[in-house]
């Protein structure tokens, strides 16, 4: 009770055990603040109850932007600004010359979708160059899994539950003010 303003870090050494533990904790109505893992654990987002990612929607939008940019760019360069005779067919029409532009349309769609999606992901995850790592213990980048719980009613009860779910180590840390 006296340690109510401490953060609990439970450390696991197996992803299957971790998955079961997270399920168990959520069943007992604990709010899991964050889970640190060395690799993406399959199905963890579902058992943590995280809301569905919207990155696919942004990717689709970025792809559409890329396609539009490609069309406008090729139309300006090859048809309007400096009309080109494409494949011996000097029609000077975008639609009639489209087969020649399809590879560029495709590439820019992919290019925009991929790069803007990565940038969006970095912004959304608050990642930038030279940022200090947030993981509490370095071994979560090696072979350990860490579950962080901020709010709980009874420390001893939580500890008992964590031990039961297979945590190999439980660390208490002061909350940063």
């Amino acid at each position: 009770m006296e340690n109510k303003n401490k953060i609990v870090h439970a450390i696991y050494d197996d992803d299957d055990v971790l998955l079961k533990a997270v399920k168990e904790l959520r069943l007992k109505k604990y709010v899991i603040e964050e889970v640190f893992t060395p690799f993406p654990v399959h199905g963890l987002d579902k058992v943590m109850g995280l809301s569905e990612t919207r990155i696919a929607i942004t990717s689709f939008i970025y792809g559409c932007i890329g396609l539009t940019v490609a069309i406008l760019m090729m139309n300006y360069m090859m048809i309007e600004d400096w009309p080109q005779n494409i494949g011996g067919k000097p029609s000077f029409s975008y639609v009639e010359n489209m087969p020649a532009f399809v590879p560029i349309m495709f590439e820019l769609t992919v290019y925009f979708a991929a790069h803007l999606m990565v940038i969006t992901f970095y912004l959304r995850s608050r990642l930038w160059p030279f940022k200090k790592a947030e993981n509490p213990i370095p071994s979560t980048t090696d072979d350990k899994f860490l579950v962080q719980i901020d709010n709980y009613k009874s420390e001893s009860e939580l500890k008992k539950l964590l031990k039961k779910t297979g945590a190999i180590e439980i660390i208490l840390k002061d909350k940063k003010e």
Partner: protein
Amino acid sequence: MDNYKFSNRVRNFSVILMVLGIIGLAYGFLSAPSSLEEAHAMIADGHHKESEHSEDILNQENNSGNSYSYQKESSSDHNDHGEHLLHKLQNKPWAALYVAALFFMMISLGTLAFYAIQRASQAGWSPVLYRVMEGITAYLLPGCLIVFLILLLSGFHMNHLFIWMDSKVVAHDEIIKAKIGYLNTPFFLLRAGFYILGWCAYRYFSRKFSLAQDKAKDIIYHKKNFRISAAFLVFFIVTESMMSWDWIMSIDPHWFSTLFGWYVFASMFVSGITVIALTAIYLKSKGYLDLVNDSHIHDLGKFMFGISIFWTYLWFSQFMLIWYSNIPEEVTYFITRIEDYNLPFFSMLALNFILPLLILMNSDYKRVNYFIVMTGIIIIIGHYIDVFNMIMPSAVGDKWFIGISEISAFMFFAGLFIYVVFKEISKAPLYPTGDPFIEESKRYHY
């Protein structure tokens, strides 16, 4: 686990399809012209009903300048052209039969390739679908034999699908003459027999080992199946490519494309995967295959999506290079298709690429049976039109029409396909219980 029971409804449905198909095909063959006069009458009838500009078409048809009277006393050039026209009209029911026969045979062959890939890669997700795939590949033998029969009848000059089989044509054609070492009827049929024998032998042994594995104590049959599957894939990719030159590309003996084999492969592969998904969803809706969950359907959906794009990639690679270089002997192929086959040519692109792309792009939609069935039907129609576009322009020229012959041929082969496939599925347990990966497949989730 209960076996699938071949229900009377499915049997009756397939038999009705076959009977209607045979009636329609008989009508198609009987109404084909048997002489020059009839052919001219058919064209004239058709055009008189239309508006004034039909006269232009008629004149082009006739190639005889400013009159369109069909008297026989005109020049020999006129008669040659008339004979050409007659052959095209006589070809129409044959070509309709051939397109449908080839299409359903290729569904089965594409499924066999998919099945062999699952076996050779020892896939963990798919074993619950093996019996469905084995059911679909059961059609391979009858399907191949029918195609072979049509090729044989072409060899006996019952039709003019393959103009290089006609010695009168070859006599005046330097290009075909140069290819005669490869394109001659005995060697052609010998090759066809060789491909069919190889494919059907693999299918026979793989099915045998698959059934034997159910009762085996060790995994010896699984290993055997792995080995013959890997060997089959090597054999398949060579023979499939040659099959596409022989059975499809040689209809246009002057034209050639180096990636044609891949293009045909992509078409049969996506059709095959689609039919696996449709059959599995049908069986699920009847209360069978309860172990096939939405993750399996999701995976098949991903394949349908991916291979549709792969097909478009190959189609476009072939099209763009030929369009860009504009070499007369190559580009005629696409000029015929764009001018005379505008609607099927471009609608095929929408059906095979744009609609599957947009419908199946969302990950969640691939888990919904309704979307898979809808897209599946679109893909099946689209790839039928794809095969149609491969065969028809050279076989019947601008005299194409999706009419009684075409629909009947499709119905007949669809009926036969459904009958053979569901009959075969009913013969064995629905899951390969002895497969070492069956547990992984049952628990598969995404």
